[in-house]
């Protein structure tokens, strides 16, 4: 996990607000469910709301980590390479990551199409899985695009 302290102020945009909304929704709904259970007022379907709220938080988080270049990697060897070689290994790594997420995007889209007419939904609150599947496929596409863009960005390593 990361160092808790960060000297830099983190940028905020649409991804930040969408992810934060999901995160806070998870936190408050689950806390309300626990309190409700202990005082005898159960919050029905809290688990399903949390399950749905995780998706925007996780998707936004993955995109933020990618755009900030914050993915965990082993730099022991690359740190000892000359700058040019380091730049090229960075580009190659970003390209591979782009291809990986492009494959996941196609798989996620494929599954989305397969399940589209099965009306997948949660049991208690009947939350449809369709928007979640769309969001997951779009996130994979955005991750692929971000990595590929980084691989071909002039003068910068990915």
């Amino acid at each position, binding site marked *: 996990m990361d160092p808790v302290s960060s000297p830099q102020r983190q940028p905020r945009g649409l991804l*930040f607000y969408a*992810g934060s909304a999901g995160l806070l929704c998870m*936190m408050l709904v689950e806390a309300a469910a626990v309190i409700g259970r202990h005082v005898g007022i159960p919050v029905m379907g809290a688990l399903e709301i949390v399950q749905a709220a995780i998706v925007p938080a996780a998707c936004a988080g993955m995109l*933020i980590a990618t755009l*900030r270049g914050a993915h965990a*990697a*082993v730099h022991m060897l690359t740190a000892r390479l000359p700058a040019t070689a380091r730049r090229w290994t960075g580009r190659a*790594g970003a390209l591979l990551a782009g291809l990986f997420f492009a494959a996941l995007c196609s*798989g996620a889209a494929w599954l989305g199409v397969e399940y589209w007419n099965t009306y997948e939904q949660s049991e208690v609150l009947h939350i449809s899985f369709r928007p979640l599947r769309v969001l997951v496929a779009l996130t*994979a596409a955005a991750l692929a695009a971000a990595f590929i863009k980084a691989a071909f960005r002039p003068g910068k390593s990915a």
Partner: protein
Amino acid sequence: MSGALGVVALLALLALGVPIGVAMGLVGLVGMTLLLGPEPALIKSSVVFFETLTRFELGVLPLFLLMAHLCFAAGASRDFFSAAASMVGHRRGGMALATIAGCAGFGAVSGSSLATAATMGQIGLPEMRRRGYSTAFAAGSVAAGGTLGSLTPPSGALIVFGIIAEQSIGRLFTAAIVPVITQALLYMLAIVVLCRIRPGIAPPSQRVSWRERGAAIVRVLDLAALVALVLVGIAVGWFTPTEAASIGATLALVLCALRKRLTWDSFCEALALTLKTSGMLYVVIIGALIFAAFMSFTGLAEQIASLVHGMNSGPVTTIVIIALLLLLLGSVLDGLALMLLTAPILLPITTALGISPIWFGIFFVRTMEIGFVHPPVGINLYVMHSIAPDIPIGRVFKGVLPFLAADFLHLALLIAVPGMALALPRWLE
């Protein structure tokens, strides 16, 4: 054969600096494509991708991270250190003891070795140097103390292990309590012994009044109560780890407000850092699960398990061999990569030998922790060097050696007495 090739390919990609999650996912996807064909490989990987993102239990990760960031914003690190320093700081080696206690306290809210070492290093290291402590001893004690963050529940490493190994995160947290306490005690013993042998490395300083001590203790009571509520709640079954994380994050927000440390900026900063870190971890977990699926198709773990079984070496010898392997790999790989690469292979082997997966999780994280302070990687040592660049890295390495000896002793104890990890969860059940 395909499994071994997969591991080699993964190591090559990791060495080239490919992000850990991507490297694991890519090897898993390509490996399954070669074994099963492109369609099943793509479907399996995409199912893992979607199910991981919608997995309720994974909510524990961002919520505990949010709790950590909010506690940090509330001043947890400085307050934990100040409380410990006011109690024992005046004794010979007391500031080092306070650093270890502060690391254990802050580790309980940060769940991360690196975070604990970096944060406590910024507080404890200058204070020890100001009081005339040996630089090697001071840096070594913070670097070693930082490793407590990895095992102290709610530990990020244990959460990731629980997800990868499909084990109860609550039981892992409960099982970690005694090992963390004994680890901290052994570090403190190392400090006391060192100060007896070489009194000059940590001179005593002025005692603070009982009034100041009381005030310092009162300042951490709320944070200590929050940590205790979360841990006790999980241990006795008041709530699940995900529920505990949400309660912890909510209460951390309230504490932050009560301490008048909650500003719009600090709140947004905590959210932004939580999203970034959890996003990074989600990619790693997705990749690791795809890689684990590939490994299960290769049968590599079963082949190694039957090889081990054929050697009639017994569980203890096998665990010692695994410990040596992990320490060796831990000297070239970082902790997360080490866990995600080896856990899917080693877990079936140890399970076949009748070793509890919960104990194995604690043992694994404990061994991984040692990698944070042993050369050549020893990431915590470099963190210390980056905080105090005037302390040569060689002196930091030298300073951590006595703690490394305590680490090996602790690991040996954990292997010899599995009850250290297993007794508490069994007793609570």
